[in-house]
C-alpha cells in the first residue's frame, strides 16, 4: 500500500518584548525562579491584565511579512483549565478572532523546487509557567517567571507531505521571525517551539486521516525524527488493519520515541469565551502602514537582491539568506570592502565548516565579519593565495591576530616579484631534467608537478597564477 503523509505545524514563537504580554514584569530568561513574576503573573485575586501593545505590533509584523490578512479587530479569549503552572486557571489566548489571518510562505523542497505553505492564522497568547518535577522528591516546583511571556502561535495549513518539508517550513519561519526582529529564535531556551499534526492517508485519498499531535519538539533534528517515527507508527497500525487514535503524543528525544499524553476523550473542554477584562484589539490603517513601513528587508527580498545586484547564484543567495545572522555577517563583510562572490564562497565554505565542527552559531563566531572581510580582501588583492588564506584563517580563529598581522608576522605574503619566482623556476627545471623531457614530449599533465615544486620551494607563497604563467613560458 502506498501512503501519503499530511503535516501541519503549530509554532510557538516567543516575542522579544521587554515586558510580559499582560503585565510589566521582565521577560528576560534565566532569572532566579519566581523573581520575575508580579502580582498579575501570580494571578493574585483582583489583578487585571493590560495588553502590551508591542506584542500586537510584533504579531502584525509577522502578518505583513507572510502577506496575511491582519484583522482590524481581534479578541482575547480565556482558555480554561487547571494546572499549577497556570496561575489564573485560564490562559489568555485568541480563539475566534486572531490578530493575523490567512497568509503563506514559500519553502524549497529537497528536489530544489519551491512550494507554497499556507498559514491558517497566527494569534497572540500568554505562556504558562514551568513545572519542575525532578527537583524535590515529594513536590513539584513551580517557576512563574515564564508565565505571561508573549507568544505568537503560528498555525500552518496541512500542506507539508514529509518530515523534510516540515523542517524546511519550520526553518523558514524560524528565519523570518528573526529577520523581522520579533523572536530571538533560541530553541534551547524554548523561544521557538514546534508541535506537529501528523496523519497519513492512502495515496490519492481526499479525506484526511486521523491525526496525532506531537509535542515537546525543541530542535529541527527532533522535528524530523519525531515526524518520521510517527509516520512509521501510523503506517504499522493501518497496515495491520488497525485505526489511528486522535491523541496528543509526547516526543522523547532521549528514547527517540513518541508516547501518548492524552486521547481526544481525555482532552480538556477549554470553555473558551471572550476575556471580559480586555477590550477588543483595534488596528487602524494608520498603524498598519506605520508597521509596514518599518518592516526590514524580508529574506525573499534579500535573496532576490543578492542574485540581481551581487550576481550570486540562486543557491548561494538562498543559503546566505536562510538565517538572518548569516546574511547580516555576509553583508557586514561587504560593508567592510570584501568582494561578494569571494565572501559568499568563504562564508559558505571555510567559515561554515569550522562553525559546524565547533557546533557554534555565527553570532558566536570569534572572527568578526570585519576581520574576516580583511582576509578576503587580501585574497582578492593577491597578497595571499586561497591556500595560505586557510592557514591565516585558522590562526585568526585561534585568536592570533588580524589577517594582516598574521600575514606579516608569519611572513606569508605572496611572492609577486617575478624575478625571484623565475630564478626558483629555473632551478627546478635544472634539477628535474627527466620530467622536463617528458613534459616537452607531450605529457602536459606534469605542469601540476612543477607548480607543486615551486609552491613547495616558496612555502606556498608564490602567486599560483604567476607560477603557471611563468612555467608555461619556460617550458614551451
Amino acid at each position, binding site marked *: 500500500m502506498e501512503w501519503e503523509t499530511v503535516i501541519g505545524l503549530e509554532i510557538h514563537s516567543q516575542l522579544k518584548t521587554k515586558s510580559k504580554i499582560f503585565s510589566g514584569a521582565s521577560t528576560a530568561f534565566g532569572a532566579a525562579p519566581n523573581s520575575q513574576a508580579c*502580582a498579575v503573573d*501570580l*494571578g*493574585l*485575586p*483582583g*489583578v*487585571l*491584565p*493590560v*495588553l502590551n501593545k508591542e506584542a500586537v505590533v510584533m504579531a502584525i509584523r509577522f502578518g505583513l511579512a507572510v502577506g496575511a490578512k491582519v484583522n482590524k479587530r481581534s479578541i482575547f479569549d*480565556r482558555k*480554561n483549565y*487547571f494546572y*499549577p503552572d497556570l*496561575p*489564573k*486557571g*485560564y490562559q489568555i489566548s485568541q480563539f475566534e478572532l486572531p490578530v493575523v489571518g490567512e497568509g503563506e510562505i514559500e519553502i524549497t523542497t529537497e528536489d530544489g523546487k519551491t512550494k507554497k505553505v499556507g498559514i491558517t492564522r497566527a494569534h497572540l497568547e500568554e505562556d504558562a509557567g514551568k513545572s519542575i518535577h525532578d527537583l524535590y522528591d515529594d513536590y513539584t516546583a*513551580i517557576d512563574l517567571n515564564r508565565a505571561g511571556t508573549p507568544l505568537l502561535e503560528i498555525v500552518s495549513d496541512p500542506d507539508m507531505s514529509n518530515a523534510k518539508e516540515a523542517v524546511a517550513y519550520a526553518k523558514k519561519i524560524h528565519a523570518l521571525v528573526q529577520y523581522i526582529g520579533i523572536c530571538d529564535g533560541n530553541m534551547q531556551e524554548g523561544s521557538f517551539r514546534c508541535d506537529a499534526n501528523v496523519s497519513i492517508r492512502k495515496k490519492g485519498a481526499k479525506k484526511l486521516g486521523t491525526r496525532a499531535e506531537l509535542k515537546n519538539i525543541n530542535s529541527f533534528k527532533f522535528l524530523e525524527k519525531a515526524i518520521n517515527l510517527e509516520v512509521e507508527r501510523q503506517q504499522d497500525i493501518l497496515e495491520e488493519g488497525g485505526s489511528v487514535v486522535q491523541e496528543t503524543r509526547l516526543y522523547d528525544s532521549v528514547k527517540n520515541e513518541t508516547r501518548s499524553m492524552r486521547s481526544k476523550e481525555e482532552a480538556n*473542554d477549554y*470553555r*473558551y*469565551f471572550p476575556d*471580559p*477584562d*480586555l*477590550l477588543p484589539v483595534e488596528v487602524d490603517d494608520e498603524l498598519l502602514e506605520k508597521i509596514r513601513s518599518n518592516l526590514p528587508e524580508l529574506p525573499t527580498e534579500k535573496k532576490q537582491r543578492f542574485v540581481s545586484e551581487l550576481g550570486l547564484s540562486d543557491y548561494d543567495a538562498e543559503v546566505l539568506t536562510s538565517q538572518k545572522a548569516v546574511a547580516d555577517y555576509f553583508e557586514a563583510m561587504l560593508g567592510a570592502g570584501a568582494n561578494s562572490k569571494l565572501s559568499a564562497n568563504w562564508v559558505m565554505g571555510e567559515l561554515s565548516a569550522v562553525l559546524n565542527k565547533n557546533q557554534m552559531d555565527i553570532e558566536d563566531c570569534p572572527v568578526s565579519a570585519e576581520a574576516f572581510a580583511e582576509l578576503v580582501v587580501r585574497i582578492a588583492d593577491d597578497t595571499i593565495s586561497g591556500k595560505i588564506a586557510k592557514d591565516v584563517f585558522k590562526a585568526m580563529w585561534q585568536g592570533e591576530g588580524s589577517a594582516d598581522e598574521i600575514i606579516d608576522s608569519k611572513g606569508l605574503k605572496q611572492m609577486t616579484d617575478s624575478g625571484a619566482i623565475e630564478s626558483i623556476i629555473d632551478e627546478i627545471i635544472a634539477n628535474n631534467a627527466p620530467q622536463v623531457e617528458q613534459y616537452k614530449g607531450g605529457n602536459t599533465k606534469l605542469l601540476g608537478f612543477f607548480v607543486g615544486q615551486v609552491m613547495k620551494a616558496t612555502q606556498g607563497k608564490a602567486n599560483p597564477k604567476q607560477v603557471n604563467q611563468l612555467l608555461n613560458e619556460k617550458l614551451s
Partner: protein
Amino acid sequence: MMHKLTVAELSKGLKNKEFSSVELTEHFLARINHSDLNAFITVTDDLALNQARAADEKIANGSAGILTGIPYAHKDIFCTIGVKTSAGSKILDPFISPYDATVSHKLNSADMIMLGKANMDELAMGSSNEKSYYGPVKNPWNKNKVPGGSSGGSAAAVAGRLSPFATGTDTGGSIRQPASLCGITGIKPTYGRVSRYGMIAYASSLDQAGPLTQTAEDAALIMNVMAGFDDKDSTSVDRTVPDYTKNLGNSIEGLKIGLPKEFFSQGLDSGVAETVMAAVKEFEAMGASVQEISLPNSAYAIPTYYIVAPCECSSNLSRLDGVRYGYRCEDPKDLEDLYLRSRSEGFGPEVKRRIMIGTYALSAGYYDAYYLKAQKVRHLISEDFKKAFQDVDVIMGPVSPTTAFDLGAFKDSVSMYLADIYTLSLNLAGLPGMSIPAGFSNNMPVGLQLIGNYWSEELLLNAAHQFQGQTDWHAQMPEGV
C-alpha cells in the same frame, strides 16, 4: 453624636477642630466593637488610629484635603496591603494581600481612615448577606431582617452609624439593594468609571464599585476620589472626572422622568409601590415631568444575568485553587485531590452553584445556546435603555420588590434571585444607578432607584440631592443609634 454626622459635616468639624480624626476614629471603633450587627469581618484598630494620627498632623499643618481624617468601612472585596482580604469566603480566609486595590490606594491617598473590612456575601454572590463565611449581617432597622447584599456589611455599617460611609461593589444590585433595604444612599457608577483593579472579581463585565453614604452630597464627595481612569484596568475609561459636588444645587425643573411599566407590574409589594410613587410625586412637585416608558426586555434580565455572571465567575474563581494562596485542604494525596477538596471545602454552596452553572453554560455544545444567546439579549436590554433615554433624562422605579426580608426567609437561592429583578438590567447595560431613601413600608426603609444614561452620575447625584433637600428620609435613623 459625631457618628450621626454626614461626611460633609464631619469634614467641616475636622477643619474647624471641633474634634480630631483620632477622636472620631476612636468613637467609631468603639461603636463597631459594641455593635452586634456583624457588619465587619476585620476591624483594623491600630491601622486606623495610625492613619488618624497622620491625618490630624495634616489638619494641624494645613495640608489636609476635604476628606482627610474621615473614617470609612471598606468592603472586604478590595485588596488592602497587610490586611486580610477574604471577600467573605473561607477560601480566602487566610489571604493577606501584598498589594492595594486602586480604590484602596485612592482612599488612602485622600488621607481617609479605614476602620475595617466590611462583611459581605461570599465573593459578592447573594442578596441578603447570609452567604458570608463570617455569618449573616443584621439589618440595623430590625435585627431579625437581612441588610441585603452583597454589600450588606457596608450598608449596615452606614445605616447603623458605625461608619460615615462605606465602599461597595455592585454586580447585579449589590450596592443599590442593600442601600435600599437599609435606608441609605448608594450609587453604582457607569461601568468603567471606577477602577476594578484589586477588587476581587465576581463578573468582570458587570462589577463596578461605588460608595454607600447617608446622603447624595456625601456620595458626590466620595465619587470625586473613587472615580477615574486607571491604566491597570483596561476596562476603565479615560474620561475626565467632573467635580460631582459642583452641580448638586442645580434646579431639576424640567427634568424628564420615565417610569418603566415593567418595573411596576406583578411581584412588586404594594407598600413599596406606594412609597416609590410618592417619591416620584415629590420630584413632580419640584418641576419634573413624568411619563410612562417601556423596557420590553426587562423580563429577560434575570435569566441573562444568571448566565453571564456565572460564566464569568466560573473562570474568574479558577485562580482560587489552593496552590499559591488561600485555603488548602489538609494532606492532599495528589494534584486532583488538592484541587477538588480545597475548592469543595473552601467555597460555600451558592458560589459552587454559580461556578457549576457557568461551567456548564460555557461547555462545548452549550456555549451558543447559553453564553452567546445571553450576550445577544444583553444587547437588546441595552438597546431598550438607549431608546428610553431618547425621551427621558432619568428612569425611576423601585430598587427591590420588597423591603428587607427576614433572615432565613429564603430556603432556596433561585427565588432570592428575584430580589434583584429591578437592579440587574443596569449592570447588563453598564448604566449608572442610585438608590436613595424614599420612605418606609411596615417600618422598614424603601429605596427609590434612579437610573441614568452613561456618564450621567452628576445628574443622578443632582436629582438625589434636590430630593434630599425636600425630604428627610435619608436623615432617619434606626432606633437606638
